[in-house]
């Protein structure tokens, strides 16, 4: 049950703080820092213990009563990274039961699975409107995941030798978050850029800022970009097809070729969905039955012959000559232009699941 807390106004993080009341913290740690054991306990399922454990105690000393760890959520590194949904559910129950003002996860340093667990815990907290903060080494693999976007991550050293510094930094930031205090940008506060950007009205126009930025660069003065370049995460390549002549192949396209009339009302830009369409028994895509609705390229050529974007005719010819096993009946369609990376990833996961169910071994994806 939520503890004693005056009914003050709730801000977006869901927590007002009456004067004098201690900030309520739930702390997520792995099996080692939770005092259960080492790697041999990495399968430990989520367990909730009252009060602080491990680094939580150091944080309580830092707070000197201003905040209290009301519960510690402990999960084994293997468990939390393998059985994500189950771990999420258990963490959610714990947070709903304790209703903290802030969740702290870690520090995970450079431990990848622990980092993933911290990311999961913070995401659950966010979904419940609870402020959260974690800490890990800047190149912890968990931070390359799209799921870590937007989270507040305090940078730490690579190993637990950096614990005193990390615990202190986490404690200070968590206290402010728990109190509902406004937090500055990553650059101002010292946490990692979180892949989160916010609209702003500058004092100067873009042109004025561009000329000023170039002058600084030309004078050799320090300068900062308003937008940092991003590197996409690598995807391990699927192993090569062993027997092409027996393989089931499917077609996927981001070129927006749909049945005439666009029956599923797919968007011309900024897709939020994908659709499968049957090409069973079709030797090619004809202009009377199919059309391009993609808004980002000159559709004249695809309108005349949709096979120019989705090569059904060529694949049928090759199928007939036994160059490969079979062309799957499903054509998977979406529109690529202006579509968020987040949505694109979701489409990929959903389509892949479908392909698996249909026993498809290889995919040809056409993009415009």
């Amino acid at each position, binding site marked *: 049950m939520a503890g004693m807390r005056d009914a003050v106004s709730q801000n977006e993080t869901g927590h007002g703080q009456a004067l004098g009341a201690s900030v309520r913290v739930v702390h997520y740690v792995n099996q080692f820092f939770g005092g259960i054991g080492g790697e041999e306990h990495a399968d430990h399922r989520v367990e909730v213990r009252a009060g602080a454990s491990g680094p939580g105690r150091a944080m309580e000393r830092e707070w000197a009563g201003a905040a209290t760890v009301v519960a510690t959520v402990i999960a084994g590194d293997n468990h939390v990274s393998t059985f994500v949904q189950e771990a999420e559910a258990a963490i959610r129950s714990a947070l709903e039961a304790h209703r903290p003002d802030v969740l702290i996860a870690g520090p995970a340093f450079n431990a990848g699975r622990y980092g993933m667990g911290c990311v999961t815990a913070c995401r659950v907290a966010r979904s419940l409107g609870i402020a959260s903060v974690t800490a890990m080494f800047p190149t912890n693999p968990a931070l390359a995941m799209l799921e870590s976007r937007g989270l507040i991550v305090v940078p730490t050293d690579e190993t637990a030798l950096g614990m005193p510094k990390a615990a202190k930094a986490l404690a200070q930031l968590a206290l402010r978050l728990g109190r509902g205090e406004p937090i500055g940008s990553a650059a101002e506060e010292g946490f990692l850029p979180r892949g989160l950007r916010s609209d702003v009205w500058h004092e100067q126009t873009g042109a004025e800022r*561009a000329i000023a930025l170039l002058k600084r660069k030309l004078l050799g003065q320090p300068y900062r970009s308003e*937008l940092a370049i991003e590197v996409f995460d690598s995807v391990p390549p699927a192993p090569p097809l062993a027997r092409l002549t027996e393989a089931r192949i499917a077609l996927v396209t981001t070129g927006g070729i749909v049945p005439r009339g666009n029956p599923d009302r797919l968007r011309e830009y*900024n897709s939020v969905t994908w659709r499968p369409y049957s090409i069973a028994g079709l030797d090619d895509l004809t202009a009377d039955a199919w059309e391009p609705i993609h808004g980002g390229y000159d559709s004249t050529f695809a309108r005349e012959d949709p096979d120019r974007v989705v090569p059904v005719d060529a694949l049928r010819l090759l199928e007939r000559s036994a160059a490969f096993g079979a062309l799957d009946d499903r054509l998977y369609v979406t529109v690529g232009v202006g579509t968020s990376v987040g949505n694109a990833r979701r489409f990929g996961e959903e389509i892949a699941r479908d392909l698996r169910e249909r026993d498809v071994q290889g995919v040809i994806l056409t993009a415009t």
Partner: protein
Amino acid sequence: MASASARLERRSFEVSDIGFGPRIHLEGGRLEVDRAALADLVLRDDRVTRCNVELVSPGEDARIVHICDTAEPQWRVGGGTFPGWISPIRTVGEGVTHRLAGVGVTVCCELPWRKTGGIQTPRENIAEMRGPLAELNPLSKLRNVVLEIALRDDLPDEECDRAVHVAELRVAEHLAREATHGHEPDTVQVYELGGADPALPRVVYICQITSQGPYAGTFYYGGYLDRLMPTIVHPNEILDGALVDGNIAGPWIRTPTIVHQNNPLITGLYRDHGRELSFAGMVLLRGHYYGMDDKYRVAQEASKLARWLRADGAVLTWENAGNGIMESLYTLQECERLGIKTVFLTWEHGGALGDDTPLQFYVPEADAIVSTGSMDEPVVLPRVARAIGGDTVRLNPQLGGERHAALGPIELSWRLELYGGAGHVGETRYGRVDV
């Protein structure tokens, strides 16, 4: 032998109030326009079947729809205004030009939607005259002369694409000439390159426009840049009407003609010329080539021209969306390899919440980027008292087009339909920052 230096004297006549009157007349900042005469002028083009003239001022509870383009009233005293359109194709950018500052001539026309999508669709261009997003379009701060026109329905897209611009440019030139002929300007600005201390760093502005067919390209001296190589242009040419914006297909992601006529990177570099830098000139190129080889070719060409202009630094802009960013970033990359320091000005995606990937392409050398903000947030345009340009707006060409009342409210899934919002040449204060 002609001097290599081009001297442009822009005489500005300030307009702070506008109304209809018996003749075109400017006095004490108030511009009166002859409604019937302007309509007749437009109707001289037999491609136009109907023309109604409306006036819209800042702060009005109004929106303008079916916008095709906006031009600033401009008159080259020596002749040759808007070359390639209403004047022969001759290089502009020197001599004396009059402009009505604070006025825009906007042509509105519901163009036919003949295809269910694709890039060459004349989408709905909407401008709010008030509200939080009004600052992002060029019309909200102007006294607007709006030409509501209809075209003959037997015109192919390429003809429509030209007819709308002829209408606005004819009126823009006529207004400037009739209102200012023989009068003294409020301010005079002289634009001339050269004469700067050779020790000052030389800066080139590399301006990329797009060229993707009818309704989807920027005109250079009245023609598309399809087959033309990247070229050196004098910045005065841009201020003096060499570029006309034909990008009706991409409302947010376009640079209206009036913005080219007042390009703030050009005027800004001129302001610093001779003091903190030497404005060395401009390179103009198009993007959105359909093959990688051509993207590499123009990047090499544009950066080579910057090198020949002896650039120490360059500002790069692009326009429209999608793969066009690749030409500008490859150009930037090559400039940096040549030792030319670069700044890239661009809008971004990033999703409505700012938690998605901002740009669709990167090069590691792009370490100094200025962002003009995102179009990804959905928006509801409120009900207004007055809609100019049409009674309905058309959305979703891929569904055959759906109509909504122009008075609103209008729900947009993102901001694409809002006129000129991307701020391609840095004309707005909008942006995004890491938090």
